[in-house]
């Protein structure tokens, strides 16, 4: 078990399914169980994609 902060509200969560998780990591929690450790590099990819699309003129810059 470990303590996870949900935007400031802390709760005990079962971490048995994410044995690699360390203090300070972000996890995805479903019904009291962490089911994945969030991949922080992948999480930013969507913004890189939008920048690319803007640079190639497919969309306007935000």
């Amino acid at each position, binding site marked *: 078990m470990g303590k996870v902060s949900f935007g400031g509200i802390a709760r005990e969560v079962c971490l048995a399914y994410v*044995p690699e998780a360390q203090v300070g990591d972000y996890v995805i929690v479903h*019904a009291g*169980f962490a089911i994945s450790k*969030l991949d922080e590099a992948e999480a930013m990819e969507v913004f890189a994609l939008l920048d690319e699309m803007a640079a190639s003129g497919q*969309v306007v810059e935000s």
Partner: protein
Amino acid sequence: MRFVDEYRNEAAARQFLEAIGRLVTRPWTLMEICGGQTHTLIKSGIDRLLPAEVTLVHGPGCPVCVTPLELIDKAIAIARRPEVIFTSFGDMLRVPGSAADLLSVKAEGGDVRMVYSPLDAVKLAKENPGRQVVFFAVGFETTAPGNAMAVWQARQLGLKNFSILCAHVLVPPAMEAILGAATGDISSRPAIQGFLAAGHVCTVMGYWEYEPIAARYRVPIVVTGFEPLDLLQGIYMALKALEEGRWGVENQYRRSVTRAGNQPAQRLMSQVFEVCDRQWRGIGMIPRSGYRLRPEFADFDAELRFGVTDIAAQESPLCMAGQILQGLKKPHQCPAFATYCTPEHPLGAPMVSGEGACAAYYNYGRAA
């Protein structure tokens, strides 16, 4: 909240909408599998901002909606027993059975309790050795690891007063049933050309299971998350594949999903559960579409422990939840919608749940 707020950024959302607008040359119909995705789409208004050519059909991914009526009636019968503490996730309590719901059993004096995690139910069993604690194990592959862990822990602790009423369902067989039109009225069925697969189901199971489905039916399937930007990107990816004539599985939700999924979770699930045929409320029997406890865990099966039989389930004649769950009708096309059926007095499960399409339409003003 970090890794949540970013995906609600309006300027980025407008960029995707613009890209989708430029991409689309003809009509396309997509189905989002998960009710959580339906709620984000309706709440954020994405359904109204997409080009007119794009139709979104809402899928069956609402666990409390597809839990068979017979099992809800069994839950009610078990919850009424004086020795039982009946535990459940909150949204299950108000789902109508044939004649009552679990909340009304509580109002009559039954010991019905809402829990956040199935492990809370195990804890209750440990603290109340004189009572029988039953957990209503509903849900898709996402909740199965937690429920497997609860049963596993109960056995480790030697608990004789814990059991689950198992109603687990699986996504891929339901998708095949929808694509293969194996059930229901096919005459008015919209041709679904692409899917947004449920990101959290795939977090647990991975997405390799969807590859044969995409190949057999030649459809794009995009594993998609739950925030507005996730959904817009998933829709963009599915439409791009359709416009380019491609099919196969793509992964939008890479921050959480890998092809193989969560291995420790899958290992425990397969030790505790085995695949079985399952009745889906409103849809019917789908072969090999559910989990039941393996025979070695029979001591933890509430249906066997309490021997509930002679259940004569009776659906509301007005409710058309089955057609809504299969994407054949939209919620506001039901004559009972927002009149006889409201979240306060639901006739059918999709009006109750935080993942039900009817509740999404009702709560976010899609009444007409």
